[in-house]
């Protein structure tokens, strides 16, 4: 009855809270959570993502809150797509009106579908769509300033290589 059990303990938190002293007020409060998206018979559920397997889907949830007295102009939330994962298209979400853009190495931020120009063998320049798997980061540029005390949240999913 041999069991092979390997467990690696490295867990860091999902969901953190600040403990500023009364004197120190940070202008922005932020929070990032990661969860594993588990498929079930009748849908899906989110579980803690401490240890996951290749091919697993991770959901990143981002929250930001303006804790100052001034409005934040041009508020942009950037979510990197970590190494060993790829962005899953159409999984992005934000709770405020915003422009969603993706970053591909060598290109500027652009709204999906991201295209690049390629030269054919015979020299013709073609516009080619870049797959979502090539995104290195995504971002949401809020359409309106973030007023004092307001929160902006965004979420997206990536798939771990397998």
């Amino acid at each position, binding site marked *: 009855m041999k069991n092979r059990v390997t467990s690696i303990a*490295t867990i860091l938190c999902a969901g953190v809270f600040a403990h500023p002293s009364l004197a120190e007020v940070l202008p922005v409060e*932020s929070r990032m959570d990661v969860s594993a998206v588990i498929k079930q018979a009748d849908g899906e559920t989110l579980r803690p993502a401490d240890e996951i*397997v290749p091919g697993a889907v991770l959901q990143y949830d981002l929250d930001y809150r303006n804790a100052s007295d001034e409005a934040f102009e*041009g508020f942009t939330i950037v979510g990197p797509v970590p190494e060993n994962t790829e962005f899953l298209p159409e999984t992005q979400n934000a709770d405020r009106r915003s422009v969603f853009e993706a970053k591909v190495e060598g290109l500027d931020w652009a709204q999906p579908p991201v295209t690049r120009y390629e030269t054919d063998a015979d020299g013709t320049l073609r516009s080619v769509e870049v797959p979502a798997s090539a995104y290195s980061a995504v971002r949401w540029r809020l359409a309106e300033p973030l007023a004092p005390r307001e929160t902006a949240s965004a979420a997206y999913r990536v798939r771990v290589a397998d």
Partner: protein
Amino acid sequence: MRFNPGVKRAATLSGLGVSAIALVAGGALAAPPPADTVIGNQAAATYTSNGETFTVQSNLVETVVNEVFDVTLSTDQTRDGAPGSLVFFPHTIDNDSNTDEVFDLASDAAGGTDDFPLTELEIFPDRDQDGVPDSLTPISETPAILAGESYGVVVRATVPSTAAPSEVTDFTVTATSQSDPSVTQTNTDIVSITTDGIIDLLKDQSLSVDADGDGQVSLGDTIEVTLTYSNTGIGAATGVIITDDLPTTNKAGDPVTLDYVAGSGVWSDNPGVALTDASGNTEATNAQGTSLQYETTGATSVIATLDTLAPGRSGTISFEYEITSALQGTIENTATVESDTQAQTSSNPSPVSVDPSADLVMADAAATGSTPASGVDGANLDSSDASASDDDGASDDVTTESADVFAGESMVFDMVVTNLGNESDTVLLDIANNDFPVGTSFDFVAPDGITPIVGDRIELTSGSSAHVQVVASLPSDAPATGAPAGFDATVTATSRKDSGVTNTTGILFNGAVVAPPVDLVNTDGAGTVTGGVGNGAVDDGGDPWQTRTVRPGETAVFPLQVSVDAGAPANTFDLVASGDANFATIDLPDGWSVEFYDTSGVKITSTGALSPTASAPAVFDYEARVSVPADAGADAVGTGLYFRAESPVNGASDTKLDSVAVEEVVDVAIEADTVAQSAPGGVAIVPHTITNLGNSTLTGGELSVGDSDPFSGQGITAAAFYDANDDGVLDANDPLITDLSQIVGSDSVAGLSPGEQARVFVRAQVPSTASYGIQETGDLTLSDSLTTENGAATDEDTANNTVLDTITIISGDMVITKEQAVDADCDGTPEGSYSLNALSADPGNCIAYRLIADNTGTSDANDVVINDTVPGFTTLEHCPADACAPALTIDGAVGTVDIAPADEGTGSVASSAQNAGFSLSPGSRAVLTFSVEIDT
């Protein structure tokens, strides 16, 4: 747990904050990452506030990639078999890996004890784990089993008819991970031969009462258990005891509560009759003469006893139990059977999978049970773990605050959210305001009262609860309200696992809202109050309490005083000013600034601690200094400014409205005195510039030529023309001008706006009878009675309202040309070439002038004097080493410039005095050069 402290200013966000873990992915994925790979991520946000750009990093989250394979195979078992019979051994394969996996299955009779050979040994699928093969096609591997799930099989051993009673043969059953063959488990099963009765027991469970109607087994549902017994042996069995102990833990080891439903027992051989749960009585006897005794022990054990069972006979005992509490997961329940000749043998494991069900209670105390149908929590609350702030003395689903507060103050409501669901959940929090004053803000914070709950959600494991606080901050202009204020709001908790599961609780403020005990008033600078009434009266019936009028560039001073009522608690107040009454932003007109100073002249932003006594208020005198920019327009009405003293401790504040008006400055200037030449019969055109130095638009003012000093003598006539197209040249379309009202400046609006300039030409006509060498002067004067956009006004500086032109009548055969060039560094060498064109240059630059006098006639020109004037706003410049000092050449020969101001002086520049000029022969040229430096 770590919160990011990193708020950095960044000019641009070109890359992302990089930590030791690389965060940037490349292109398509090639292969799974190796075990122990950490996938870390950290988000960033950028924004601009007050003109500066900031970047803020979130916390870091990490996930480890690890594919772990593990398996459990259940269980070793010994079963009786009759010679020539089939014996069934149910087994369960649990996929304990963290990923889906297929397991190889094998059975092997070789080795161990082999009193007799097994004719056949096969493994059949039993997905529903009811102990009966789903098909009779043997399998050698499981299908893919999801992580954490199980799969059932039945191993069938065929016993030869030659086997003899008491003989024993064993065999192994093995499950092995296909991904990692070192992961394997083996059970050893034993077949024991007997010719006595052999009771086979199968257990089946099905959903009997679906309490929540979702078609799945979940909390509150009732399960029907059917135990099927049969004698597969050769002889009769006696004293058959079937026992079913309802489990108290699930497969993961978490406690479950399964409650037997009283009177639910039924025997197949006595249908329609409920078996009694009491012990010691015979329930019934069937047609074969078999009697049944049936009893339950507590609420959790069922024992059925059959006195005898003939070979080939079978029947069922069924009963029900309710799932009262169970976490999401699998409950395995094995029944057992024994007889006088058979050792206790298990049935199949018969697992029941309990679905996740979410259930939340949000109330003013932790909950021990779900919210009743009314939606109001009460009896289901545990008042020993109640709100830390509730003032209404009851756990009744309303958190009440009764202490009086000021306008602007915050109050805290502590409440408790409980996760009664059967698995971990994330609770999403929301609040809806019903009656709190408009402008009240609500924030969710952790029980320390400070730490914000960013994202308005918290995670709770099954059965746990947490305190959550709502901080309600009243706006500083909340009206005073007597107790009970009756402000309420509704807090909603929603399950993220099941968005249909929500629960609400109420918060209620029943105190009074009182005016803060702080007053902000104007004083006369000596402590006497002159404006602003106590609390609440921000303005004087809509008007500012005080208006001060200043000239542009000046500072308006408002002596102010903050006082805290006698008997009120000590406090400190921040001093602020804004054009916005709500102070949502600090809003002042462009170029305006407001600063506060204490009575010693030290700049301050707060009052410092003010501590009234029981009988005397605490008073703080200070002044607000409002600086108005030098280009402020006239504004008799005044710009409203709200001054506020606000406590950062409890939000108490007082606000009042004052106003700053800007005087109208009326000053128009005309420049500059000019010397010009004309031959008899010719015309001298002299440009002048009119500038509005005031702060309101000039719409009228008389402009006249020769008002105080007409060009008399010599018969010169002159008039003023307006350079309407602003090209520096008197065109046919440039109109005669006698009044400022005719000017439409470069902004295309009639009149001269503040700072605007207009060009006017004096055109002097010299009659042909005029004599050479004569100089005539005439003035161009603007009246000091002007009209501005605000009405009639008087120019406050009449010294700059007139210019004097001097016309020198020169020989008709002499032509004089004046050119200019910019010498920006005043080194005597102009950067460009001389031209007649208009130039632009900056203060501190030099302009080089070149006056060229040519004798275009046929006779000598005698007593030639070339003269000019240092223009207004410039001074004569010699340049280093006198490189640009006034110089004269006459027909190529160096002459002297007899009349010139000293270096850096102003005044006339002339080759000589009148009657002391030089001669110029026909075709010859004299050139006089000089440079001036533009005033800085």
